[in-house]
């Protein structure tokens, strides 16, 4: 099922949580809504589910305007952040709940509901736990029950709110891979919310980066990582360093020296240079480079991170050096970013 979010605005008590958001989700796609807390990602998910009504705009399921459909009519599978399993019901009853509450004519017989439930528990690798209660399960198992329960109603769209948020790192990674497999096997259009970029980049076909109630960028993992289209995305996805620079005649300047990077079409003025700390070229001689004094150095796994103080204004940037690099305290290091982007200062 295709889902189209068209110019949706959502206010809570006059406070805008989403400003004019539009998004096309293709059928069968696995989409991540990624952003810091307060970016509106969960609100967007709840709007798609029908747990909230948009203040303005519309949400289409296929060709049909679903904005005024109730959550029951939308037939979405929603997995809640804390699972919201019914704690007084067994695992099997939890999974079968969506079938049990169907109106008489479409409700399967009790035996059929049981059969469907154990089939789904097979799918989520929990067979044998039918008779357990949620309190007797581990976090990862509860998560799987929640997913099986959501899939029991044969939803048009599967929506997951921070699906791995409450789990520890090890279980997280396993479940991530497993969710991808389930998605590929069942082909549900799936949208999940996360604040964990690694999760979003690894799992999703496309990532929707959100900030302050707006969509900053939509793209594949490669697109949002390699060509961020705003300072926010550069800063939020992956690690980045930034340095205030000046554009003059198509050249970038730091303080009073050119750094050997050209921006032919940019107008003169102040700007901010962004690059990845690991994506730099170290230089022996400096004719057009960024040079600075090492003020801090720390070991990060297989590399060394150093903080440099640049120029008279003592701007600090972080770059990555090979372990064997002899950069000790107070020594000078010259480098030039390999891949970088300049965002002109606003105003």
């Amino acid at each position: 099922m295709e889902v189209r979010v068209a110019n949706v605005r959502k206010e809570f008590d006059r406070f805008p949580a989403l400003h004019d958001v539009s998004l096309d989700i293709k059928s069968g796609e696995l989409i991540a809504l990624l952003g810091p807390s307060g970016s509106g990602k969960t609100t967007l998910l709840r709007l798609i589910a029908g747990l909230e009504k948009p203040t303005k705009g519309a949400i289409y399921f296929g060709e049909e305007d679903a904005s005024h459909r109730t959550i029951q009519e939308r037939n979405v599978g929603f997995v809640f952040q804390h699972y919201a399993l019914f704690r007084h019901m067994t695992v099997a009853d939890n999974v079968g709940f969506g079938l049990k509450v169907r109106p008489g004519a479409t409700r399967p017989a009790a035996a059929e509901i049981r059969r469907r439930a154990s089939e789904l528990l097979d799918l989520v690798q929990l067979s044998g736990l039918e008779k357990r209660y949620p309190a007797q399960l581990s976090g990862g198992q509860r998560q799987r029950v929640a997913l099986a329960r959501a899939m029991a109603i044969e939803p048009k769209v599967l929506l997951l709110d921070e699906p791995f948020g409450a789990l520890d790192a090890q279980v997280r990674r396993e479940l991530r891979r497993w969710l991808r497999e389930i998605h590929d096997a069942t082909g549900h259009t799936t949208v999940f919310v996360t604040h964990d970029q690694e999760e979003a980049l690894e799992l999703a076909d496309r990532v929707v980066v959100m900030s302050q109630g707006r969509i900053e960028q939509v793209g594949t993992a490669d697109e949002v990582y390699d060509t961020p289209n705003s300072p926010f995305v550069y800063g939020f996805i992956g690690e980045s360093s930034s340095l205030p620079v000046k554009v003059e005649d198509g050249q970038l300047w730091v303080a009073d020296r050119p750094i050997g990077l050209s921006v032919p079409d940019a107008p003169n003025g102040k700007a901010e240079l962004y690059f990845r700390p690991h994506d730099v070229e170290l230089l022996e001689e400096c004719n057009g480079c960024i040079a600075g004094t090492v003020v801090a150095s720390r070991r990060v796994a297989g590399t060394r991170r150093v903080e440099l103080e640049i120029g008279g204004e003592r701007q600090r940037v972080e770059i990555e050096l090979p372990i064997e690099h002899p950069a000790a305290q107070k020594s000078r290091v010259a480098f030039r970013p390999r891949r970088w982007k300049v965002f002109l200062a606003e105003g």
Partner: protein
Amino acid sequence: MAEIIETSSSRARENRASAINESRATRWVLMALAFGFLAIFLLSPLVLVFAEAFKRGIEPYTEALVDRDTVAAIRLTLLVAAISVPLNLVFGVAAAWAIAKFEFKGKAFLITLIDLPFSVSPVISGLVYVLLFGASSVLGPWLKSYGIEILFAVPGIVLATVFVTFPFVARELIPLMQEQGTGDEEAALSLGANGWQAFWYVTLPNIKWGLLYGVLLCNARAMGEFGAVSVVSGHIRGLTNTMPLHVEILYNEYNAVGAFAVASLLAGLALVTLVLKTILEIRFGHAIAGSRGH
């Protein structure tokens, strides 16, 4: 401090885990105070009630209980509880639902209103109904012209009892439902349940022990209420006397055995309530207090 330092190493080990422990003497004094207080103010009256009731043996006791007016009082008390407890159950669940699950203007005011019967003297609650439905009110004579008696009749007693007991269920459920939030209900709706199904299959099982607890307390109060009922009842023997009122009448007539026999029933009810309450607290304490099961 000095004492601790002076103690031998074995004593120190013994006390290691209990830094906040007082000395043995202090503990004894505190416990003796607590138990002594309870014995004087709670236990001795309870013993006295039963002692007085059985002073002349079993026979006068049972005779006093099968007395026509006493049976009428018992029946009326049960009737009043049977009407007011279900009413307050429905009201309590509805109010707690509204307060815990929705945001609306005047919520704080509603919570204050629910607490009102706790802060108002029961006699005042009774007087309010006298003013509302009495002979000199607007409503009373009008209803009377249709043959409806409120005051000095069963409806008045029920009204007063409902008023006095309505905080119990609501007060018990509000914190419980607030803590449980709306997640489970949203999950039920997202799975296709309608509002009624969500309530019946999800909300109600989540609050059932807390609800039972509230109903228990509500019932105990409904049967034992004296002040408010006393004002509106009119004390007509065999007609508008509830058990607590009947106890008073019998006592004033120097019928000690009769008075204490009925009182022993109320005391028995209190004991049963206490036992049930304790069982609920021990077995389902977490569900009543509102902490999540998982």
